């Protein structure tokens, strides 16, 4: 009798890993990490909806497809109009110095390819330290295939005058899997703004599995803006892991527009006192787009503050998910943690799932969360219409201002206009 083996979807990724390793070699300082990560991935496999944190997002159809891992082709880069920034460009996950603009970086600030910097002690200490591949299968997969990525190092006391714009360009004529990796290390008292965006060339489907690790040292400030303009055939899983030290400040602004399935994991580990963490998000979706924002704030030490504010507008058959979790550990007293999620459904078929959770083990804390889901305020609409504004315009006005709350929170002025433009396109 022949023995038929069950062909798990994970096995395809494991087989691809073997081939990938034989092509790219297994030596190097990160190969141990890569090996451990693939073992972990083989153990846990992809998450299903039975997994509590994936309850509302079914990723199976996306991972069931066949993807190729392809080398970069020659391409062009659009960038973000009006954004005056240093530019680090990656094509299909590999550093592309010819497209990057890194001249004029102040001394003490380095933007380089992970591949070129792999010998650095700093890399070895930090890569894979904050993004936990034990917990998150997608992080394990990214870590296993770790070959290149971007490293941004800002030495103590250095403050960057302009943001650093990381652009991932994806070019392919076949369905493609790209796994970008980013490490940002801000030294003591350093200050940096990062803009992260993806450009897709060609109409093929893509799965982007990005991992970003950010280390914010004492008194440092990091602002991270993630701008994702999806297409109906791109799916994204992003894991952004932040580690914060004493009196540091971190702010993230995540803007997601469309895409097939998007899952943004954001985890903040505030491991020292007087940290400030601001998490802002705006998601807009139409057609069958599915956007899932999952945040986890771990307050391990006292006297910290975190504030989360996520807003969503869901049109047509779109689905939105917000899963926020705040953990206040024992003895982490005097924590102020706020969580707000507001969503608007524009059609009968749009859906929103919100799960703002608090887990608190210290008594002297102020934690609150609020969630609302509904439609546009009828009285507001009436007011505008009574002033002679057409219903369509009134709706657009109200929705734009709803989104504006989040947009305006971004400290990078040049992004405001660009994002307002995307909001406008989504509403028309």
């Amino acid at each position, binding site marked *: 009798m022949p023995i038929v083996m069950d062909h798990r979807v994970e096995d395809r990724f494991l087989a691809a890993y073997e081939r990938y390793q034989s092509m790219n070699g297994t030596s190097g300082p990160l190969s141990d990490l890569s090996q451990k990560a693939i073992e972990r991935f083989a153990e846990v496999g992809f998450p299903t909806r039975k997994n509590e944190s994936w309850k509302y997002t079914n990723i199976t159809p996306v991972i069931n497809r066949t993807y190729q891992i392809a080398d970069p082709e020659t391409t062009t880069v659009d960038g973000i109009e009006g954004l005056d920034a240093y530019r680090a460009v990656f094509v299909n996950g590999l550093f592309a110095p010819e497209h990057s603009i890194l001249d004029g970086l102040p001394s003490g600030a380095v933007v380089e390819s992970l591949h070129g910097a792999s010998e650095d002690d700093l890399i070895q200490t930090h890569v894979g330290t904050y993004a936990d591949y034990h917990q998150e299968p997608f992080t394990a997969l990214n870590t296993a295939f770790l070959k290149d990525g971007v490293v941004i190092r800002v030495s103590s006391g250095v403050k960057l005058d302009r943001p650093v714009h990381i652009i991932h360009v994806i070019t392919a004529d076949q369905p493609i899997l790209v796994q970008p990796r980013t490490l940002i290390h801000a030294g003591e008292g350093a200050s940096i703004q990062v803009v992260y965006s993806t450009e897709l060339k060609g109409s093929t489907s893509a799965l982007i599995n990005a991992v970003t690790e950010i280390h914010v040292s004492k008194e440092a400030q990091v602002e991270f803006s993630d701008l994702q303009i999806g297409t109906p055939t791109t799916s994204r899983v992003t894991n952004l892991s932040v580690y914060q030290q004493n009196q540091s400040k971190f702010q993230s602004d995540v803007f997601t527009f469309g895409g097939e399935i998007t899952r943004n994991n954001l985890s903040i580990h505030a491991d020292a006192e007087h940290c400030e963490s601001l998490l802002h998000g705006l998601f807009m979706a139409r057609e069958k787009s599915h956007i899932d924002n999952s945040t986890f704030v771990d307050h391990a030490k006292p006297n910290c503050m975190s504030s989360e504010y996520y807003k969503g507008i869901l049109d047509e058959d779109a689905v939105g998910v917000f899963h926020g979790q705040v953990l206040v550990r024992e003895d982490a007293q005097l924590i102020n943690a706020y969580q707000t999620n507001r969503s608007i459904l524009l059609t009968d078929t749009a859906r929103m799932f*919100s799960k703002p959770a608090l887990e608190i083990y210290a008594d002297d804390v102020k934690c609150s969360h609020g969630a609302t889901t509904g439609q546009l305020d009828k009285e507001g609409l009436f007011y505008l219409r009574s002033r002679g504004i057409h219903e369509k315009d009134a709706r657009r006005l109200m929705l734009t201002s709803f989104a504006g709350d989040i947009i305006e929170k971004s400290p990078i002025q040049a992004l405001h206009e660009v994002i307002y433009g995307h909001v406008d396109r989504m509403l028309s």
Partner: protein
Amino acid sequence: MNTDTQYLHQVAESDYEHGWSTEIDSDTIPKGLSEEVIRLISAKKHDPDWMLESRLRAFRHWEKLASDTDKYPRWAHIQYPNIDFQDISYYSAPGNKPRYDSLDEVDPELIKTFEALGIPLEEQKVLAGVAVDAVIDSVSVATTFKEELAKHGIIFCSFTEAIENHGDLVRKYMGSVVPYTDNFYAALNAAVFSDGSFCYIPAGVRCPMELSTYFRINEAGTGQFERTLIVAEEGSYVSYLEGCTAPRRDENQLHAAVVEIIAHKDAEVKYSTIQNWYPGNAEGKGGVYNFVTKRGICEGAGSKISWTQLETGSAITWKYPSVILKGDHSVGEFYSVAFTKGRQQADTGTKMLHLGRNTSSTIISKGISADRSNNSYRGLVRINKGAENARNFTQCDSMLLGDRCGAHTFPYLEIQNPTAQVEHEATTSKVGEDQMFYCQQRGISEQDAIKLLVSGFCQEILTQLPMEFAVEARKLLAIELEGSVG
């Protein structure tokens, strides 16, 4: 050590007020669960064939669920060792089983038990105007006020009697809200339940008195598996009270009850609970495992179901009184106070499932944790696609009395209709220092101030309880806080 901590230490050490056990001859079957045991329970209960079949069906389903310990329900924020279901006796009835017509015939030991609880049956009968269907362990031994209820056509009896005398009604409604396939413990209950209460309010009748049942776990090592079924016909109203205390025990006792409520057009059912089962000692040893499935369905238009609960007992509470808002304009309410101390763990909340148009639900939950306890609110609000103009308001506040306890909130909001208006708010805080200061500078002792503030924190919920119950609830909360407040 500051007084706050002292206070909490005292709570932890304070004894369980209602901890004793009555010595009554019991008819207990040996430990273990098998098809034979189900048949034995069924035979003891003189079940009709359909009932036995229904038990066996549930048992077979449960067996499947129980075959793999990895599949035991583990999603709640509670920790406990796997329960050995073969180490439990599934049936225990007080001795001298015949049904009594008057209290004189009741075992005097039993009367003493009730008196110790502060609820003498006779007095209640005369003064409170409350019909008491007292369930000790698994068999109803006294049912009062039946005649008066009968005048209105109201049926209020033990489940056993209901199966015997009103089989058609039981058959029609049992399992219609909580089918045996619903969850692990609902399946177990459907297989082994020994008794419970049945309540039927005919159309247009407003029940003239509050119906109440006192449950007590009495026999060491016997879990109690009751079933409650309340059917309110069109335009009727009933307020149902359930209260529990249990004697102290060293081994964990499993309690897996099922409560089903059916409210037809324009009917209103108000269900109030005080739960004070033995919580275990300061180290968390002993104590009741309370895994309860409570659900009501607003079947008809304009119907209303309201759950109010005060949870102070049990080592583990796992309980989500829910409402399915099927009828248009139906209303669901959930008011809860959960107090945990020692090593108690509570994972409790509600589910509001909006199906009909113009339905509304309100959830107010207050959690208070002390010592090393963990108190979680877990609630689901689902607005289905067709539920036009649904409205929900949720507020869950947690208060922490001590720095070694936990307070958690896990709300789930699933919105599938744009006309829905859903709001959720939650706060977590400790007793305000400025509030304490205010009270103390007015000459109120620290302990009294905490009592006052906690009582104020819960006020919203306690006022929802029927009067007699509210008095008891306040007393209970004060006793629970006693240690903490010195």
